[in-house]
């Protein structure tokens, strides 16, 4: 265990809770077109119901207690050009001493809590499957981590934080699992620390920049010859058109959006719930679950306006894609495909990201795989890193077995 890590408990102040309740008392709703359903965004009935539950029934202190059952810590991480950031993380060790150190990175609108259901499965010690020591941070500006204070905190800065966190815990070599922005940052970590520190990684949202005719002529030709490929792309384009508004706003004017996020609890709720409800596979969120998730944003250390800046920083204000400055790496990569993941690229394009050594496809699950299908996702990691698996023993001396 790193000597600088301090135990951490979530402790939202009474003043913050009181302000939230004052605001919830004054919540003002818009009307809605008749029969709108989901055609115009989050439905009024849902947002009202959840907001009223928030106001009258949701018990934050009880939720806080449950969250605090997770072993949490904070540590100072120096980032070149950005000073020191206090980073919050969950760190759950396995009873198996040679467990594989695994860094789990959330995305947006996710949080460190997405690791929760994976923990008991991944850290379980057994002769039959590999076991992991799991580290799940709050990204800078998210959850209970400090946010950067100046512009320019891009992909490589995030990668620096993530790598240094693992090193500070004594994990000189580790593996990595993520989806969403966590996947994007995985590309940066692989580029900057691949082989030396990052030995292998896994993604449940395998995407990268699209191929060009000049770089990958065969993949381009495949679009015309393979119906499954062209259909996937058409679907991706439709999804983008209907659901990409948040991305266009967050990559260009995150500060403008920040005022709404910081000031309106149900405004924040609606923006995030619109995604939670729609990009999952038959997953029934309870009000408590949604509100716990939203509360991490509402009560985040840097305030709810800070997290969306990552979209701007990774894209230069939407001037380029999120992978700018990265390349294909030969770090072994595992991919898992879940049917309701909205951000999908053809499977044959995964080879553009890295050296694919493992691929799994599931018949159930959406964007938040770790939360919706923890057994399936953990199962994929066990297969990838277990005895006989393509990444077995990738971390020297830590093959995951007791």
């Amino acid at each position, binding site marked *: 265990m790193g000597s600088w890590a301090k135990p951490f408990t979530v402790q939202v102040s009474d003043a913050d809770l009181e302000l939230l309740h004052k605001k919830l008392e*004054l919540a*003002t709703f*818009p009307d809605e077109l008749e029969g709108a359903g989901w055609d115009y965004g*989050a439905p009024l009935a849902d947002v009202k119901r959840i907001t009223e539950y928030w106001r009258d029934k949701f018990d934050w202190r009880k939720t806080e207690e449950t969250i605090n059952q997770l072993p949490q810590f904070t540590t100072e991480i120096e980032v070149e050009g950005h000073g020191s950031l206090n980073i919050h993380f969950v760190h759950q060790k396995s009873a198996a001493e040679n467990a594989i150190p695994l860094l789990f990175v959330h995305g947006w609108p996710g949080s460190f809590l997405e690791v929760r259901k994976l923990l008991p499965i991944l850290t379980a010690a057994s002769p039959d499957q590999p076991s992991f020591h799991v580290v799940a941070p709050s990204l800078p500006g998210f959850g209970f981590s400090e946010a950067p204070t100046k512009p320019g905190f891009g992909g490589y800065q995030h990668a620096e934080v993530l790598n240094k966190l693992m090193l500070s815990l004594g994990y000189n070599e580790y593996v990595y699992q993520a989806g969403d922005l966590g996947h994007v940052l995985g590309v940066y970590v692989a580029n900057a620390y691949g082989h030396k520190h990052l030995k292998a990684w896994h993604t449940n949202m395998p995407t990268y920049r699209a191929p060009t005719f000049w770089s990958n002529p065969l993949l381009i030709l495949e679009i015309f010859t393979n119906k499954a490929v062209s259909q996937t792309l058409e679907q991706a384009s439709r999804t983008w*058109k209907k659901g990409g*508004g948040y991305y266009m706003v*967050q990559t260009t004017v995150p500060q*403008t959006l920040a005022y709404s996020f910081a000031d309106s609890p149900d405004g924040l709720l609606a923006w995030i719930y619109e995604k939670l409800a729609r990009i999952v596979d038959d997953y029934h969120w309870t009000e408590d679950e949604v509100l716990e998730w939203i509360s991490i944003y509402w009560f985040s250390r840097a305030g709810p306006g800070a997290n969306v800046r990552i979209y701007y920083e990774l894209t230069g*204000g939407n001037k380029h894609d999120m992978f700018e400055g990265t390349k294909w790496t030969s770090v072994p990569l595992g991919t898992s495909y879940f049917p309701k993941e909205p951000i999908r690229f053809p499977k044959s394009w995964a080879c553009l990201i890295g050296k694919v050594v493992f691929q799994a496809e599931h018949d159930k699950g959406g964007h938040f795989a770790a939360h919706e299908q923890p057994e399936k996702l953990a199962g994929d990691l066990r297969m990838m890193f277990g005895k006989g698996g393509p990444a077995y023993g990738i971390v020297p001396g830590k093959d995951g077995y007791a």
Partner: protein
Amino acid sequence: MSEQPFTLAIPDADLEYLRKKLDVVRLPDELDGAGWQYGAPLAHIQRLLAHWKDGFDWRKAEAEINKLAMFTRDVDVEGFGTLNIHYLHQKSEVKNAIPLLFVHGWPGHFLEVRKLLPILTAKSPDHPSFHVVAVSLPGFAFSEGPKKPGFEGRQYAEVLNKVMLALGYNEYVYQGGDWGHLLGAHVAHQYGHKHVKAWHSNMPCYRAPKLLSNPFLTLEPYYSAAARQRISKSAKYRVTGSGYFLEQATKPQTIGYSLADSPVGLLAWIYEKLVAWTDEYPWTDDEVLEWISVYWFSRDGPAASVRIYHALTGGSTHDSFAGAARSTIPLGVSYFPKEIIQLPKSWTQLLGNVVFESEHDKGGHFAATEQPEALAGDLRKMYGKGGPAHGVVPGRNGYD
């Protein structure tokens, strides 16, 4: 209900409610040295918020607005029942003044016509005069909005045309920018020649030309630096400044919750555009807050106004011109340098029958607010004696 005079009188309870909300505002932080790069700067919003709480006098602003000749009337819309529509109607003392319909956009409103009124209605032998009607679009300011889906270009045009007919203006001319421009294409298509005799736009844009139908226009950017320069400005807007458009066109309800619940959220969302889209216009805090207040106190609430983006684009499945073919009625256009969407000037002929063109060296998207003399001057030239659209409304050529 036929025409009723309209007096703006926001209830004390609404003012009190706003005050309560302003008292519990929670602001975000900001990156060091962010400036305008990431959106509306914190210092600006803090200053405006402080003024809103302690300096801005809504009742005073309201009294000034009430000096304008405002009315409401019920307008039947096929398939949507009646909507109670708010508008301003300022007649000129010139009996034969040209009836002019002024249409705002988003985040604009009917008050954008304010500075134009004294100029356009002024009587003189040297320039034409206008009777001015400025309608609040359904769902904006004090007009009722539709309550069910399907209220699209055709319906907005129907409302606008019916207001003019109800006022006794069987034939009229039209001026607009932003949605006012886009809806102008619909009004011209539906009622061109029969009712609307000519129109003017300060944001002239249309679909890009297709190579097979207009090879020369399509190829122009390849050999004209001026054309490329204009397109690059539009590209900059598209890439870095159009997030609001896609969000409002696809998820107007989602952003609507924030706009309805957070006065400072609404302020930032709109203020960012008021500054980004204008040519160094020296907004005063009172001006900004009056502008925002029209949204905050609007009849259907601020969330209703953004639905127009979804309605006119089919939820971002087509452009706003769908259903509006090019009309042959005379079209005048004014180009302002800081307008957000700029296309090669030669493409304007795809939009309509261009009879008047004017270019200015100052002004942006909110031309009527920023450059009222320039804009009014263009209308005077277009419709005045010797102008290309003079006498286009029979019996009302603008002179007595």
